[in-house]
């Protein structure tokens, strides 16, 4: 009995620790701005979809989502096409330099590689912000955004 209670308490702590933040950001996303910035309001009185709506409709979030899905699917297909044959050979065949080959593949996870003149397109640099998001949504990242805007060839924001 004692042991069961202990296990239950530990499980509860684990669920709180790992689910809590996810739940909190979900609530934060649905809380009206005025209530979110009101320090005296711990639990919002009502939930709203306006933030989600402005993200997906006005700020073109649906486009970003679509691009993410496209990128993910394409990269899965390509990495399987390249990786599967090599994995098959590495498990089925015995050949000289097999370990070296395997090590080289692992080594790629070790290095942070940068490439000349390949901003954005190379995938080496990631862009947190969509080029069409107005600067006032970005806050202290304006300096980075100005440069990203330049890369994208976007018009300067007023």
């Amino acid at each position, binding site marked *: 009995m004692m042991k069961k209670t202990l296990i239950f308490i530990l499980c509860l702590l684990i669920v709180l620790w*790992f689910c809590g*933040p*996810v739940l909190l950001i979900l609530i934060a996303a649905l809380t009206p701005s005025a209530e979110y910035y009101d320090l005296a*309001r*711990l639990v919002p009185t009502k939930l709203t979809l306006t933030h989600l709506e402005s993200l997906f409709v006005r700020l073109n979030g649906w486009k970003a989502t679509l691009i993410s899905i496209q990128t993910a699917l394409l990269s899965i297909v390509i990495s399987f096409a390249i990786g599967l044959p090599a994995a*098959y050979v590495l498990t089925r065949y015995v050949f000289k330099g097999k370990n070296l080959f395997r090590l080289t593949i692992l080594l790629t996870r*070790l290095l942070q590689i940068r490439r*000349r003149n390949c901003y954005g397109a190379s995938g080496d640099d990631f862009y947190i912000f969509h080029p069409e998001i107005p600067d006032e949504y970005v806050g202290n990242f304006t300096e980075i955004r100005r440069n990203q805007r330049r890369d994208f060839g976007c018009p300067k924001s007023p």
Partner: protein
Amino acid sequence: MIHHKGKIALMLLLPTFAYLIVFIFYPLVDTCLLAFSNPAGPLENFRRIITSGEFWKTLRNTLVITGIVVPLQLILGLALALFVNLRFKGYLFILYIIAIPLALSDVSAALMSYSIFASTGFLNKLLMAWGWIERPIYFFGFRFQDRAFWVIVVTEVWRATPLVFIILLAGLQAVNKEYLEAASVFGFSPWQKLWKVVLPILRPSILSALLIRTIFAFQVFGVIWILAGRDIPVLAGEAYYWQTVVYNSNISSAYGLIIAVVTILISWAYITFLKPKSFEEEAV
């Protein structure tokens, strides 16, 4: 027949070779060229970085974050893995709950942490609702770097402990029950079983978890960039900054090479000092 088989193997390996050459070796060589090219001499870029004063702060930050985060993750991950491996009723549910952060990017983890620790965030609201504090505690901003540092540590621990947990749990499941039964017959206490039986068998898993986590902790970037910007500079953040804000690919590449060299040194140290003993015996 053997010759024929060799041809097939070669053909199957070709795509990977092509990938490695185009996406790894070419950029690697190019990075080296960039890092060592400067009108004032091949080592000028490195001299500029090391004498800038910023560099030692950057290196120290990276080492300190790695040194705090990785051991915490290892201890927590091991504790979680041992707990889940008790196979109590509903342990699979807990397993899935722990795996949640694996599905999140570092950027979303950082934003979550921001929504909790911001001045109007959940934590401040909660403490004020309970009457513990009068006005909000600030965790972010130039004046509160120490606090932001701990928020980053908590975020990193929250985000990456599940990876350690998964690796160690897989290792634990491979522990033969008969060893533990034998230990019971010899009158080992649970604590002795952990130290004398489980941990030695788990050694290869611990080694790979440590390796992976240290390498990634050394490249930590997204979480810090969002929560502290350049107030808490780290190596990977500097490489990004020099490339995308200053547009100096040479300095950026030099930073990239420095990260690579330090990670290789650390990995080498791990493999040398933590190598499972049985491997060496087999080799002899």
